[in-house]
């Protein structure tokens, strides 16, 4: 029982990171209809900023979010300027395909630039209080993991509020629906695109920071996180941004349970099989009203 709970809890913790990693992708995909394969590279870059803050400034990784987020937000702005801006006005499927390709190329560039800048060595951040935490009837809840979960929850709620309740948020949704109409409503769509993309990048950066101190970082981790994030957003469902969190948690728990009770080697398969199952019985996703 105790080990079951321990597995469950770690599944949830892992899932929280999946959730936040997917949320930025969901935002950019659901809103801009851009399938950004380079999302994982943004996660990776965020991780490096956090690593740098820790190793040279000695900042706590939770504190350094205050520089990680703006840094990658700016990277997002720049990437939008030089790359994504040019495809965002294309239509429907065309745009999705082109974005797939452009971001694949961009992913190569970012990954290899990171390789040149930071070398291929794995990096990670180990805080002095790593491993400390709550012990509830033998189930361990490390502070770092709890804080991660908490931040993910807060970010999710804030994002939801922003999109649904504020004018700039609604402008983002409107632009996603029909950019010309949005222009005709007086929305500066160029800015909306830029902000949305940068916001997505900032979310990726948060994920990157968590990845860095929970697991590890290397220039090549991008693709893994893109794949995970894509699976999560499909689980969550079309256009569901908030749904990325529960979907991420679900994936995390399924993988952890499969790892503990089926076979550790097949746990990713278990996650993917659940994913395919959901796709087939509920193609609109789990967290979307039909």
């Amino acid at each position, binding site marked *: 029982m105790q080990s079951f709970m321990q597995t469950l809890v770690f599944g949830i913790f*892992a899932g929280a990171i999946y959730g936040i990693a997917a949320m930025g992708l969901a935002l950019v995909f659901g809103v801009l209809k851009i399938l950004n394969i380079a999302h994982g590279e943004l996660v990776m870059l965020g991780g490096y900023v956090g690593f740098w803050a820790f190793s040279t400034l000695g900042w706590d990784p939770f504190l350094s979010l205050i520089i990680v987020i703006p840094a990658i937000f700016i990277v997002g702005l720049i990437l939008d300027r030089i790359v994504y801006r040019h495809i965002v006005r294309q239509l429907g499927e065309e745009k999705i395909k082109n974005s797939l390709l452009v971001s694949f190329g961009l992913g190569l560039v970012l990954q290899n630039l990171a390789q040149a800048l930071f070398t*291929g060595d*794995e990096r990670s951040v180990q805080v002095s209080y790593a491993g400390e935490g709550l012990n509830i009837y033998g189930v361990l809840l490390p502070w770092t993991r709890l804080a991660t979960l908490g931040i993910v929850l807060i970010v999710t709620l804030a994002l939801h509020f922003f999109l649904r309740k504020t004018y700039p948020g609604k402008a983002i949704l409107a632009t996603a629906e029909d950019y010309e109409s949005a222009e005709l409503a007086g929305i500066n769509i160029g800015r909306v695109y830029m902000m949305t993309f940068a916001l997505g990048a900032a979310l990726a950066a948060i994920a990157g920071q968590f990845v860095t101190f929970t*697991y*590890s970082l290397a220039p*090549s981790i991008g693709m893994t996180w893109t794949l995970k994030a894509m699976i999560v957003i499909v689980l969550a469902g079309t256009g569901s941004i908030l749904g990325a969190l529960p979907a991420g948690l679900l994936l995390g728990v399924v993988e952890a349970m499969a*790892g503990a009770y089926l*076979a550790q080697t097949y746990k990713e398969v278990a996650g993917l099989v659940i994913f395919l199952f959901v796709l087939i019985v509920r193609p609109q996703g789990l967290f979307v009203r039909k």
Partner: protein
Amino acid sequence: GGEETTTTTLATGTTATTTVSSTETTGTTEPLPATIKVGAVIPLTGKYSGLGEQVKNGYELAVAEINAAGGVDVGGTKVPLELSILDDESDATKTVQQLETHSSNGVVAYLGGAGSDLHAAAAGIAEKNKIAYVGIAFALYTGVMDQGYKYVFSPFPKSQDMAETIFDLLDSFAPKPSKIVVFAEKTDWGAELTRLWTEQATTRGGYTVTAYEYAPGTTDFSALIVPAKDANAEVLLALPSGPDGLAMMKQIKELDWNASVYLLIRAPDPPTFGENLGKDSDGVFLLPGWNNGLPYAGVKEMAAAYKEKYGKPAAALTGPAYSCVQILVDAITRAASLDRDAIRDAIAATNLDTLVGNVQFKPDGTSSVGCPVNQWQGGKQALVFPADVALVPPIYPAVPWKDRQ
């Protein structure tokens, strides 16, 4: 120029005897080219790039030193080495393509990269092209060194050497630990090591071994750590890749499993391991294949030159990489020819003191070289075993997580 064109003949006779050089290749009477072309294919990008960089630096340092001294003595004439390095992006398919490129450019020998799967792909090509291949930075035996290849040489410890050394180490501890847990990566190397470890445990006696398999790329190890902890296991043996190893150690701490020995092959090798884990890296054993504190001839000089050139201490793979060049140069000199087969034969007959100790190749292309054990101590790798070369004693048992401040 002296480019040679190997046409792969369908005749099977050439494989039976290795001493007969094939008829198409040029003899020693041919005028010598301006340089000796040697081709290396190294993973400079992708998942093995961290290792690849060490290997590359080792080669480049060695070649620079040889050329600074005028080059290689080929039958009395000094000819400089021309080392051409191509990147295979840690992708075995690309390794093949790059080796073919080298071959067509007329290299006289290949130098290998890093990582078992890339070496395995490369070995077949070397064999097909009949070009000698000297490669380090992989311990996998099955599938690479057991294929009966004639052109593949590896002056680097193999899994069997590692397994023996590890159990020598465990045997040397007092009190002797008994409960071993293996986190077995589900790869051929993982299977090979798990098998060898289990064999060693049985032959030496006094050990129990439980193996848990996991897939490479796993981020969450709680499903392995929780049962290991519940069973009060004392020794962890594993061969994680870099990222897997970091995640593993972090979660061992998070889940508060206190073993006496953490012995990880591969992940703790790069210097960044200590930086990444800080004091939590302390006590982790590793078998990097080499150490810049080993008492072999030339190690000190090389370490100093390395530090001068790259601004950091010579890493574990740089020594063996340097040795590959030493072996190759020695062989070319003895062959007194740039004929590919002559070089191959000369390599097979190597008896040379190198940075990895004395190298003499067995028929399968391996060589017994030292297999030093390091341990992370105070954020640095320390040479702790075998006792005759050890610089400091090992920490045993590992300090419990709670007591590390």
